[in-house]
């Protein structure tokens, strides 16, 4: 379980890349709005699961789907991808940031496909008292320190030259993100719909998250109504799993049935 296997799938005529490793019950991970860094920090989850990391259309190694212009479009995409991957039994679903937003909607509308749900600093809830940062306005040179609080992660992120290729790749991913959230970076309907999630849910958050404030965690737990647990991590920013192996362990523990 030392590395991911990459494969391509075509879903609704869009080629997407899927990373997989490990054996056991499927664990699907919905990533956030940046897929260029890889996901090696998640490998411990493959010790007891078949870990599946599909790359969203418009990000990383997947092609663009210009007909996707809402977060709900991603939910429909994933219903089709789950069929293509023959994931007919309920899976454990983990979502980070934008991926958490997609995962929560998936748990609402495709709830029969979800066993347990873990949301790491999920986006999508309207919390005007603790609003999220405008990711689009953060200049490239300030991005690492806005995303990560961990000094070791920060050092790794600021290594190396920022090439034209890197800038173009980032612009392309930000365009895919803008397509779905430029006008509004939350969905007021989530307030109304989250109570429909029946899967046991764990919410994780870095206490030093500068993109989505940790105070939003409470609102998620309140709206979920099914008794969601909250786990916060000191010294950790927005890149929860990259910055905190403990957060990865916590997810594994939760998915195994461990909890408060």
């Amino acid at each position, binding site marked *: 379980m030392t590395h991911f296997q990459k494969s391509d799938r075509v879903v609704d005529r869009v080629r997407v890349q899927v990373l997989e490793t490990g054996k056991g019950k499927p664990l699907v991970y919905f990533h956030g709005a940046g897929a260029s860094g890889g996901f090696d920090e998640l490998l411990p989850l493959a010790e007891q699961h078949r870990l599946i990391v599909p790359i969203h259309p418009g990000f990383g190694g997947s092609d663009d789907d210009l007909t996707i*212009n809402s977060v709900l479009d991603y939910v429909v995409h994933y219903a089709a991808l789950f069929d293509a991957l023959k994931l007919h039994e309920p899976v454990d679903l983990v979502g980070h940031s934008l991926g958490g937003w997609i995962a929560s909607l998936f748990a609402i509308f495709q709830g029969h496909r979800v066993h347990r749900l873990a949301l790491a600093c999920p986006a999508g809830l309207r919390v005007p008292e603790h609003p999220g940062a405008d990711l*689009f*306005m953060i*200049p490239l040179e300030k991005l690492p320190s806005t995303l990560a609080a961990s000094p070791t992660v920060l050092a790794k992120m600021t290594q190396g030259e920022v090439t*034209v290729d890197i*800038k*173009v790749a980032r*612009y*392309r991913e*930000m*365009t895919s*993100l*803008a*397509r779905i959230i*430029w*006008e*509004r970076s939350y969905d007021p309907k989530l307030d109304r719909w989250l109570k429909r999630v029946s899967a046991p849910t764990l919410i994780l958050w870095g206490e030093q998250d500068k993109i989505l404030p940790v105070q939003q965690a409470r609102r998620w737990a309140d709206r979920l109504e099914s008794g969601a647990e909250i786990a916060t991590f000191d010294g950790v920013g927005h890149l929860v799993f990259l910055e905190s192996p403990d957060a990865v362990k916590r997810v594994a523990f939760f998915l195994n049935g461990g909890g408060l």
Partner: protein
Amino acid sequence: MSVLDRLQFYLMHFMPYPDVVPGRPQGQWVDIPNTHFDPEKGHKLYKEYLDELVLGDELGYDALVVNEHHSTFYSLMPSCSVIAGALIARTRQARICVFGTPITLTYPHRLAEEYAMLDVMSGGRLECAFPLGTGMEYWVNPLNPTNARERFRESMDVLMQAWTKPGPTRFDGEFYHYKYLNPFPLPYQKPHPKIYVVGSGGEDTVQYAAEKGYGYSQVFTPIAAQLKSFESYRSTAVKHGHTPDSESIIISAIPYVAETEAKAIEEARDHILFYFNNLLRTSDQMNTPPGYMPVDRLRKRLEAGVFQSSEITWEALTSVYRTVLGTPDQVAERIAFWCEQAQSSRIIVHLHTGDMPHWKAVKNITLFAEEVIPRLRRKMSPELKAAE
């Protein structure tokens, strides 16, 4: 017949608020603290700027041009139509050019209505230009840059249907849905006022203008790039069965006239530099929100090392943009050259620039009308002069 035989002079104003917020390398757009706006200063500026354009009408400029930008010290005109209304009331002969509201930033039927009002109020003096809007506008108007170009095309379809198909009509689009598209009033000019599309170098904008047979203008780009676009525009227009002529392209210039070249430079140079370095300047982030520019165009730009926030030098400025500071003879010679180079008989002149005080703008507008325009008229071909 040379383009010089039919020259028309469009006096344009950007109406800036020159008391810029200091210490902002990212420029005066989008997130400038608007508490820096002083309404008394603003009132004085509107009065002076409107006086300058009205003077243009009195001195016989063919057209007066205003445009629109939001949330920026670059411009006091977040509504083009409001200023145009103020101008119409105070002018008699000059055409009034709304060059213009980015149509994506408003409901297209509202623009059809507003422009129709302006055309009827002025007795048919309106000309319109439709820009996509700079990237900066998309931060402060809650509108998605990723599909702005598609929205632009659909908005223009709505506008043209509103103006040319007897209402009420239906419109069932991707972005706009009308059960009763029925603007009242309709334009004075039939079928509608002259239409230009304004771009900043994107091939799709050039193609769109040429395909539809609209006029074309290109701003914020070096002359060489403009000339390439004009070539592309003309050949595409012909392919679509249109006949582009010298009135299809509008070029723009920043001239300053004075008694001697040295005086012109002394009076105007710093104000022009101020315009480029303090008003126009913005950050790459703000100028190019995600999806606003096609990825391959962005790549070309990054590889060429072009940055929005770099400071421009006088040498660079004068070699890539149409600037001329000199005597009436010098200014007339340059303008004739540029018009012939672009095969355009319509030139926009910015005679107030940057933080130029009112008296200099008045001097420039007056000298240009009284000394430069007659010199250019004298360059008309002999046959035409004989006919006069």
